[in-house]
Structures are given as structure tokens and as C-alpha cells.
């Protein structure tokens, strides 16, 4: 810290001019131009938590279907989409629309639109997954139409935000990659729905391969990797990684996704494309982990508690995903490696990472919201039910291990145990969220000081 002699200070306000325009965090109202009202991301996060609980309940109740399931219609497919669409994509919408404006320094265009889209998205996911579970293609098509329409609207908002972005080139690159992947995801989803309706646009293997590459690794994966450069510094109070290193890591990840997507559309050269995609993915992962380690190494708050442990578990899950992908490439189609690869990607990587993020960001956003007009606003820690988060994290990890064992051993008993354990964890997270909202409501009801 320098003295005034060493460095001239900015002009100080005139005596008496320090008129109080607002108290505490009441500036949030002034930040509306850049940040969405908390109710918008919270409704998506709330839906994600409910769909997460529903997914584990479906696993519990449909355990007998899992050993024979190979990817067709049925409750295992419904459980998968309750996680991917209901939990991961819903959270991605809430988190990206809340956080990207901070990174890009561009407000969300039409801030009321995300709130309206929620009313189409949630019923859409319910109808879509019910159609999958009950093997009713018309329901599936109806639900898919709603979900695809919402994701198109979300994609438009994302594109408008990225187009006007200022700074954070690495995050923006990941964002554009995720957006292109979203377009491929929606195209492949349409092709799959048409297949189930008996009007094929694309062969089944190509549509499924494209859906997996574009959805899990492209849309969700690139968003998770890109937003990490905003989220981790924010949570840990560390420095944002260098743009060039972000671009290098993002470039490798984007190349991997592009090659995996191309492999789905070019069966004749699928194997070399997939092997190259795997190698690029491994390079991207190493570069990304080095960035994240750099953020934590110099951070003011390197220990992120249970949320941090889940984020680390997510990164380990991504590494395991790549190993299992290699095993699946070397094995025959009937082996369990492909299903374990899918579980590692969706459960081990994305879901673990997402809930690590949610554990940290939900109390933070709630405290921001509660601060409006108050000198003494509740702190994030005062809104957090810590025990519920510990229960959730432990149960989440155990449930994934049990589910992997159940898939590998074709054991309905182990899958049922996974469903029960996952339900406990998901319920614990729901209790955490309900408690947080209750405490938030109480804080908001208290008279402003």
C-alpha cells in the first residue's frame, strides 16, 4: 500500500457529499442491466434439484430394467434425460445467463424471456421423459418440441450475449463452441425423435453418436469447462487464467468435440477420428486442469469445502471418462464399457461438477438477493445448511460407484442400492435448497435497517 506522496489518490468526494444513495447490497437493483433477477436462475436451479431427485427415484423404481437396457426407450433412458435435460441443461441455462453477462460485460437481451421459457421447459421435460419411460413416441415428440423450442430461445440469448462480449476470450470461445454444439444437439435430437416416430432423417447410430458428442461433450462439457474460468476464481477468490492458455485448452477441447461429432457422421473413418478425438480431449483436460490448479494455487480461499470436493470429483470423472472411452473403443459393442463411459461422463464428470458449483453458488446468489436495501444482510454461510451438503456429496459419490458396479455386474440389486443412495443424496440437496429459500424468505421479510 502506498502513501499519498507516492501515488496520488483519485479525487475524494467533497465533505458532506457522501450522500447515501443505497445501503449494503441494494446496488443489485442497479445491476439489473447486467445481472438477471435472482428469481430467474433460481427457478432453473430449483427445477434442476427436483429433476435430480426424480432421476434417482426412477433409477430406484426401475432397477430391474437396467441390466438389459441398451439405450432404447424405457425408464433408464428417462432417468438419463431427467439428469441431462432436467438437471444439467436447466442448471446450465440458469448459471450461464447469470454468469456470462459478468464475464462478457454484456447484459442479457430480453431478461424476461428466460423466466417465460421456464414455463415451457419444465413441462416439456416432464412430458418428454414420461414419453421415454412409457415408450410413447407421440408424448416424447410433444415434450421434445417444447424443450427444443426453449433451447433455441436460450441459444439465441446466448448468441446475442457472446456477440457483444468484451474480454475473456477463452470463456467466449467455449461459449461459441457450446452454442454450435447446441445446434448439433437439437438437430440430432430431432433426428432421434423422428426415428421413434418412424420417419428417419438419419440412421440410428449416427444420430445417437452425434447426440452424445454434441450434448454431453459439446454443449454441457464446453459450458462447464468455459464457465470454470469464471466460477473457480469467483469461488476461490483467485485470478482468472491467462486468455492464451484458456484458448489453448478450449481449442483442444473444441477439436475433440468436432472430431467426435464428425466420427458419428462418417462411419467409414469413425475409429481414427474417435482415437484422435480422445487424444485431443486428453490434451484439453491436462491443459484445463493446469489452469484450474493455477487458480487455486494463488487463491485467497483455496478450500471450497464439499463443493470443492465435488468439483475435484468432476475433474477426476472426466479423466475416467476418457479412459473408459478408450476401453469402449477397444471392446465390442455388447461390453459394459460404453455404458460405464456414459455414466462416467454424465454422472462422474458433469453432475459432480455441477453440484459442486451449485453448493457454492446458491447461497452466494441468495445472499446477493437478500442484501437488497439492507445494511446487515444474511451471509452466504448463514443461509447454508452444511450437514445437508455433506450428506449429498457422500451419497452422490457412493451412488455413482454402486450404479457403476450394477452396470458392470448386470445386477438389479446394485442398481437398486444405487437408486436408494442417490435418492438420499438428492433429497439432502433438496433439503439444503428448501432451507436456503426459507432462510432467504425470512431475511427478505425482516424490515430493512
Amino acid at each position: 500500500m502506498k502513501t499519498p506522496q507516492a501515488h496520488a489518490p483519485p479525487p475524494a468526494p467533497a465533505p458532506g457529499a457522501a450522500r447515501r444513495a443505497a445501503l449494503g447490497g441494494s446496488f443489485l437493483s442497479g445491476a439489473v442491466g447486467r445481472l438477471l433477477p435472482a428469481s430467474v436462475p433460481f427457478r432453473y436451479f430449483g427445477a434442476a434439484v427436483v429433476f435430480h431427485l426424480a432421476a434417482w427415484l426412477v433409477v430406484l423404481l426401475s432397477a430391474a430394467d437396467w441390466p438389459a437396457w441398451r439405450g432404447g426407450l424405457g425408464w433408464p433412458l428417462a432417468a438419463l434425460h431427467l439428469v441431462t435435460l432436467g438437471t444439467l441443461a436447466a442448471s446450465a441455462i440458469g448459471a450461464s445467463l447469470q454468469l456470462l453477462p459478468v464475464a462478457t460485460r454484456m447484459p442479457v437481451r430480453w431478461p424476461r424471456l428466460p423466466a417465460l421459457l421456464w414455463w415451457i421447459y419444465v413441462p416439456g421435460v416432464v412430458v418428454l421423459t414420461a414419453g421415454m419411460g412409457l415408450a410413447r413416441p407421440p408424448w416424447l415428440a410433444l415434450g421434445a418440441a417444447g424443450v427444443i423450442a426453449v433451447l433455441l430461445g436460450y441459444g439465441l440469448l446466448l448468441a446475442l450475449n457472446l456477440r457483444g462480449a468484451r474480454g475473456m476470450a477463452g470463456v467466449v470461445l467455449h461459449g461459441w463452441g457450446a452454442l454450435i454444439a447446441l445446434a448439433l444437439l437439437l438437430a440430432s435430437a430431432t433426428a432421434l425423435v423422428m426415428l421413434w416416430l418412424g420417419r428417419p432423417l438419419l440412421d440410428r447410430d449416427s444420430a445417437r453418436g452425434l447426440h452424445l458428442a454434441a450434448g454431453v461433450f459439446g454443449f454441457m462439457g464446453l459450458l462447464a469447462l468455459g464457465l470454470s474460468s469464471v466460477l473457480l476464481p469467483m469461488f476461490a477468490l483467485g485470478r482468472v487464467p491467462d486468455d492464451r492458455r484458456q484458448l489453448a485448452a478450449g481449442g483442444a477441447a473444441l477439436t475433440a468435440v468436432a472430431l467426435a461429432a464428425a466420427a458419428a457422421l462418417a462411419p467409414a473413418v469413425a475409429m481414427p477420428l474417435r482415437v484422435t478425438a480422445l487424444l485431443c480431449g486428453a490434451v484439453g483436460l491436462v491443459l484445463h486442469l493446469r489452469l484450474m490448479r493455477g487458480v487455486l494455487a494463488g487463491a485467497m480461499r483455496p478450500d471450497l469445502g464439499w463443493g470443492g470436493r465435488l468439483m475435484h470429483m468432476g475433474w477426476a470423472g472426466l479423466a475416467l471418462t476418457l479412459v473408459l472411452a478408450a476401453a469402449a473403443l477397444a471392446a465390442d459393442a455388447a461390453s459394459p464399457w460404453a455404458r460405464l463411459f456414459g455414466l462416467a461422463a454424465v454422472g462422474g464428470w458433469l453432475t459432480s461438477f455441477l453440484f459442486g458449483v451449485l453448493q457454492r453458488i446458491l447461497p452466494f446468489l441468495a445472499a446477493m438477493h437478500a442484501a437488497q436495501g439492507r445494511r446487515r444482510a444474511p451471509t452466504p454461510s448463514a443461509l447454508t445448511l452444511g450437514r445437508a451438503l455433506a450428506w449429498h456429496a457422500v451419497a452422490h459419490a457412493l451412488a455413482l460407484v454402486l450404479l457403476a458396479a450394477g452396470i458392470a455386474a448386470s445386477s438389479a440389486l446394485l442398481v437398486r442400492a444405487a437408486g436408494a443412495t442417490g435418492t438420499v443424496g438428492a433429497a439432502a440437496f433438496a433439503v439444503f435448497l428448501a432451507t436456503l429459500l426459507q432462510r432467504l424468505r425470512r431475511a427478505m421479510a425482516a424490515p430493512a435497517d
Partner: protein
Amino acid sequence: MSMPTPEPATLGSDGCWHIDVRGLPPPQPLLLILRQVDDHGHDGRALIVHHDRDPAMLYAELAERGWWAERIDGDPGEVRLRLAAT
């Protein structure tokens, strides 16, 4: 790191610390302000923040530290905050 080297806080003639974080990308302003609060917040002086936008992420972190913020008059286009312990 690609971010510019920030100017440190300075002690103004009004008896307050001043920190100018205008033009810095997020979360650099947040980090600089909190580091100032953590390192020098115990000296009883208020901290005047000269910002170019409302630091929405700051308030929850301040609350965790027992601090609060109020907006005071600043230059056109500036968001000027006075931070103090509660």
C-alpha cells in the same frame, strides 16, 4: 496472466483509503477490494472504491467479513462506493 497490474490502494486527504479498479476485468476488482479489506481493514479507515460498474458479487463477500457498502457521489460514469466495517 493477461490482466493489467492493478494500482494499489492509496490514502487520500479525506482520511480514507482509495482504490481505483476501473477498466479491470472481473473478478480482478473483487479480489483487489477484498485483499485490501482483509489486509488493512482493521485500521478503522473506510475504503472508497472507484469502479466503472456495480460490483454485484462484492456484497456477499463483504457481509461475510462484517463489512458493508454504500454508494456515494462520483464522477459521471463512475460507481463510487464507501466500504466500512459494520
